[in-house]
């Protein structure tokens, strides 16, 4: 496949064959070689062939082979002539990250790190098949699906300020619970407040470096501050919604009148009945995920109160921000000089809105939207801010994390004989986990270098570094 280098951070796949537009991948000289060897570029080109695509089919620097759409892919579609695709969002609808920061520094907690790790592990349900402590009645479940974070806070599990520091205020208003199958509802009943497994985690960290002091001040971050990061999504409910609608759209694919290069690209016209139904069901799953992360934050705050024998005012653990990285949004963007509503798919990509944008939380409107980029287990994470360049080039989008380079099988092979938890402990990072294979599969070597990924988006100008965080405690399912 032809790939043309535009500059040190941008490569383009020229429009050929069935493609309706060109593709653009953000990367660097070193990483692009690995990207070329994967199927990911083919997938960027496949997405470019979908009807109604507006602008290029995009790949972020953490791009890797997914199924259908690549992970790290962004694509926007015209509301009238374009499609919506569950595969362009991902199975884990609104998988995302939230970062909170406490009024604590390392000396305040370092004598009790083991206790903190143990207590988080004991009190936050994680791992395959774990169930939450909050069992939902059907009536309450529908409220969660319609209201998201707001419902959880209204039950006393959080603060009002948490809501305004969540993307979309933790709620997509078009959510329609009647679009969910009985199976999706059933799977969601007992999982609210659970972490999940795989690459989901809760991480206690420390602000290691500030790159932009003014932005860090605006976000409430200071060097040496203790932070808490939560990476989780919509659990089984979200997976089932995606699964259900892929099957529905697959059955309807003959109606579409065009050939799908990959069945996993099953889609429907945005304004079709199936398209609307999916968008409204997806919104339910998104709201469920926000409610989930809100409840997880609340439980984590309680753990801190207990382990350090302090109250909420002294802990002062504020939610900095919560971002989604698997979602489809109907957003207004300027295309060829004109404002236009488009449906932006971000699959393993984060929104990156600049200062002044009306959808950026009021507290941050003069700075730009906070962007949270978690490293993989045991490596640093980053806080960035949104930029005008992202609006010009990527429909206000940026990367989401490190992206895998090793398959799980290769990771396990490479880790044979190594005690990953010991290697991390040697670096001063405590790990607690449940899954037999999780640690080896999730080891740092299995992922791209997060700093390199972040340098690409920063260098390309689609988001700007604000701070770097280092992990102290990691809890995984």
């Amino acid at each position, binding site marked *: 496949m032809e790939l043309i280098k535009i500059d040190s951070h941008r490569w383009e796949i020229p429009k050929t064959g069935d493609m309706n537009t060109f593709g653009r991948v953000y990367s660097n000289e070193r990483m692009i070689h690995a990207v070329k060897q994967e199927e990911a570029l083919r997938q960027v080109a496949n997405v470019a062939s979908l009807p109604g695509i507006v602008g290029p089919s995009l790949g972020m620097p953490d791009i*890797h082979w997914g199924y259908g759409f690549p992970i790290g892919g962004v694509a926007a579609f015209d509301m009238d002539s374009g499609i919506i695709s569950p595969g362009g969002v991902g199975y884990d609808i609104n998988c995302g990250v939230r970062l909170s920061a406490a009024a604590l520094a390392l000396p305040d907690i370092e004598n009790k790190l083991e206790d903190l790790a143990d207590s988080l592990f004991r009190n936050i349900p994680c791992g395959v098949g774990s169930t939450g402590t909050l069992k939902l009645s059907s009536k309450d479940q529908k409220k969660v699906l319609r209201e998201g974070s707001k419902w959880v806070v209204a039950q006393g599990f959080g603060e009002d300020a948490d809501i305004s520091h969540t993307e979309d205020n933790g709620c997509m208003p078009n959510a329609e619970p009647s679009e969910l199958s009985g199976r999706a509802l059933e799977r969601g009943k007992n999982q609210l407040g659970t972490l999940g497994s795989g690459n989901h985690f809760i991480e206690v960290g420390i602000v290691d470096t500030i790159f932009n002091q003014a932005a860090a001040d605006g976000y409430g971050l200071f060097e040496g501050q203790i932070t808490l990061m939560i990476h989780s999504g919509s659990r089984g409910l979200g997976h089932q919604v995606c699964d259900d609608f892929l*099957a529905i759209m*697959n059955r309807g694919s003959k109606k579409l009148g065009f050939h799908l290069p990959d*069945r996993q690209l099953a889609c429907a016209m945005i304004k079709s009945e199936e398209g609307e139904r999916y968008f409204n069901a997806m919104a339910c799953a998104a709201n469920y995920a926000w409610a989930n992360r809100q409840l997880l934050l609340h439980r984590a705050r309680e753990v801190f109160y207990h382990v350090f024998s302090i109250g909420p005012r002294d802990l002062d653990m504020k939610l900095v921000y919560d971002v989604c990285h698997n979602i489809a949004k109907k957003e207004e963007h300027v295309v060829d000089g004109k404002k236009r509503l488009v449906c932006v798919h971000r699959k393993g990509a984060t929104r990156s809105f600049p200062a002044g944008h009306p959808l950026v939380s009021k507290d941050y409107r003069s700075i730009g939207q906070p962007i949270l980029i978690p490293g993989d287990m045991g490596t640093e994470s980053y806080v960035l801010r949104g930029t005008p360049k992202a609006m010009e080039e990527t429909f206000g989008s940026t990367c989401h994390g490190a992206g*895998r380079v090793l*398959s799980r099988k290769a990771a396990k092979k490479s880790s044979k004989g190594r005690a990953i938890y010991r290697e991390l402990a040697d670096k001063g990072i405590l790990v607690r986990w449940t899954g037999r294979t999780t640690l080896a599969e999730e080891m740092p070597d299995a992922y791209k270098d997060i700093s390199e990924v972040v340098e690409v988006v920063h260098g390309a100008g689609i988001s700007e570094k604000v701070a770097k965080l280092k992990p102290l405690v990691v809890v995984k399912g």
Partner: protein
Amino acid sequence: MSFYRIIDHTADLGIIVEGQNRRELFKRAALALIDLLTDIRQLSPGYTETVTIKGHDLQDLLINWLREVLYLWNGRNLFATDIHIYEMSGTTLSARIAFTAYNPERHKVKREIKAVTYHQAEVVKTNDQWSARVICDV
């Protein structure tokens, strides 16, 4: 287990199975899926249920079949253990399945499988041998 192979895939998990005929192929595909979740040698079936699956071609039928087997685990904590496909065409199958109910004391769950995907799904017959490939989201 030797009745299936795992395909190396950066983000997800793929399996390849083979069989002498379609029923054996589909049965093995389901057991391979279960073996990705837990060690099938530790399972002892009890409860039985009949399922009927449809698809618009063999590939679609395979994916829908495996989606159902996965849902029975993810949604109802049941591991399909003994599988007898008693009726099958190119677009439909009916099977009687004996399940093992999940017992955390006995059954170690190896991993979460979020979904069976359509990506690169394939059912082919080469000479007298059937083979299938499926990629799962983990």
